Structures are given as C-alpha cells and as structure tokens.
C-alpha cells in the first residue's frame, strides 16, 4: 500500500509541465502505481483543458490539415527505439516510463559499489542539470547520514527502506530539501531499489564526508 506521496505542489508543477525531465520522471514513476495521485494530476490537467477552451483560438493555415493527413501514415521516429526497449527483458518492477532511460537490463547498468553499503548506477539524461541514478542496497545496507544542498526526489521501485522513523516501500515517494537530514536503512527487506534525482550536492556527516561527498557533487 502506498503511504507516501509527492507533495501537492510537486504534482501541480508536474501537471502544468513545469518540471525538468528528470524530476518529472520521478513523478511519472510514482503515478504509474498510484491511482490516487493520477486522479489529482488528472484534476489539475482538467484545469489545463478548460484553459485550452477559454483561450482565443488562433487561425490555422489552410493547407495544415492536408499536410497533417498526408503524414499520418509515417511511422514515428521513436517507434524503432520503443521496439528495441520493449525487446530487452527487464525486471518487472522497472516502471514502463523508466524503460526508455535504461540502455539495457537493470542488472547490466554500470553499477558502482559504495563501500559495501550500497550500489549506484548513474542514469544519464541528456540535457539534464540534475544528478539521476538508481540506488540499491541489500539487507543491512544503508546510506550514511547526510544533509542536502537542495531538493532530492526519491521513488522506491522495489523492496523498502526506513528513514527518520518512516518506512517507505515500493511505490512510495520521498521529497527532501536543504533542511532535511537522513540515513536511509534497509533492514526489513532483502533488497531495496530506488530512483534518485538530486538538484544539489549531498553532505555526508562525520568521516563519510571525505569519501562520499566527492561522489555526490553535481
């Protein structure tokens, strides 16, 4: 059961098309499994629909319809990529909206082991200013206590973690900002896999700062 959702203002910004692609991805990932938030986003989009109808329509060029009709049989450029993406066997918990961002199976991403605590694979999104990655940890793993230079967006894809007394499981969403500190721990599940998007560096406490801060610059 999903208990943790994106804040309303984030859902709103998503619905109006005001989020950068990487952040929008975390919301879309959550929406894929959350009917409640899909309904909220749909309601905000209905405002967009009403605005579409209240705006004065602007005349379209005469030949436009004909030239569009002529193009309807063109296969979309994205079709080849979609077919390729669909043919890669993928972990079932990887959301459909995320699949085009993975070059291959989850298992074959460039995983980097971080001191036996967790693993991370960076997910490049072209043009994105954000740092995007998939983070996974086994039972007993954790991300050491850290603060944030700016917003952090986390969508739990599989398993679960515990952070500041809250349990987050598959489908849950966590937004953190510069005033938040936490040390997410995987202690009730075999494994936890999350999509993580950062807009600013992380600052690790104590001796971890030296080894981990450099990995979490932007």
């Amino acid at each position, binding site marked *: 059961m999903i208990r943790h959702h994106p804040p309303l203002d984030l859902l709103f910004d998503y619905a109006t098309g005001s989020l950068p692609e990487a952040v929008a991805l975390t919301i879309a990932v959550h929406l894929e499994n959350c009917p409640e938030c899909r309904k909220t986003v749909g309601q905000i989009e209905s405002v967009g*629909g009403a605005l579409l109808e209240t705006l004065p329509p602007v005349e379209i060029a005469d030949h436009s319809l004909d030239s569009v009709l002529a193009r309807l049989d063109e296969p979309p450029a994205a079709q080849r990529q979609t077919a390729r993406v669909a043919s890669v066997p993928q972990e079932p918990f990887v959301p459909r909206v995320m699949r085009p961002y993975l070059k291959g199976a989850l298992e074959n991403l460039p995983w980097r082991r971080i001191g036996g605590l967790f693993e991370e694979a960076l997910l490049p999104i072209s043009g994105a200013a954000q740092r995007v990655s998939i983070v996974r940890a086994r039972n007993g793993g954790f991300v050491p206590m850290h603060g944030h230079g700016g917003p952090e967006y986390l969508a739990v894809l599989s398993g679960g973690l515990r952070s500041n007394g809250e349990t987050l499981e598959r489908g849950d969403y966590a937004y953190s900002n510069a005033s938040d500190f936490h040390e997410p721990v995987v202690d009730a599940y075999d494994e936890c896999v999350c999509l993580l998007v950062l807009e600013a560096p992380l600052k690790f406490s104590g001796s971890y700062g030296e080894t981990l801060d450099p990995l979490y610059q932007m």
Partner: protein
Amino acid sequence: MNNEHLCGLIELVGAQRDRAAFSELFLYFGPRFKGYAMRTGCRDAEAEELAQEAMISVWRRADSFDRLKANATTWMFAIVRNKRIDLVRREKYPSAELEEVEQRPADTADPGVTYDAAKAGEVLRQALKTLPLEQEQVMQKAFFEEKSHSVIAEELQLPLGTVKSRIRLALSRLRISELEAYA
C-alpha cells in the same frame, strides 16, 4: 462541441483510424493548440508546427484514450503540453497518464460517484472567470509560462508559502476536489 461528441471522435480515431473524425478534431483543436502555443510564447510558425505535431500525437495515441478516466480536453491538454516540452525545450516529458491504459493497475473508481465530465468542464470554465487577480496570475504563470512554484515565488518576490497557498486557493475555487461529486 460537447465532451461526449469529442470523446466519440477520439475513440473513432483510436479504434478505426477514422480520418473524418480526425479532421473534425483537427478543425476544433488545431486553432486551440495554436492559441496555447502562442500564449506560451511561440511565434506564428512555431505555434503552427506545434499544433500540427500535437495533432499527429493525437492520431498516434488515440487508442489509449479512456473517457472514464478523463474528459477529452483534459487528455488533449496533456498531449499538447508534452509536445510543447518536446519541441520547445527539446526534452521528453515522462507521462504515466498517456501510457497504454490496460498496462496500468486498475484505478479504484468510486462506483457511487459518476463523473459528469460535461458539467464539470462547464463549472470549471465559469470558475476560471471568477478567480481573484492574484490567483489568476499564478495559474497563468504555471500553465502558460511553465513556471514551477519556486520559480513563480522568485519572480514575484513572494515567499514560497504564499505561492503555494494562492495555487491551493485557486484549485479549491475551481472546485477541484469537488469535481468528482458532480453527477
């Protein structure tokens, strides 16, 4: 054109590749898409292109439209929004709501409440006209200038909390939470 009719047209396009239905949709939404594009800052040629590309998107995605989940203009808005981001920002906009309907876990619709899309749309359009100026301003910036809460706050030199509450007030004036209750 009422919602019922528009939904029917989209469904004809999705199920039967009906070009007459598509043309009717084009003649209705094309100029509205172009109006949206220009309101977001596109010049004529760019807006024209955006309208055409968005209609091609409509053709491609019509089979995933579900009139029980959204009314026609809501769905159209999502399509043109994503196309604007594609063409103007050159970014993809991941959209779970435009994905294949049957692939998603079933939505838990309350069987006791039927969503009268036509009535809801009319209520919304009327309510939009009555928004206080400061609420209208933030809504315009959000929908037409693709500004997030924090960008709006910065631009208007307001605390983030003020922008949040103006948007929430606007949404409640637009009876967003009550739309489901119209039957």
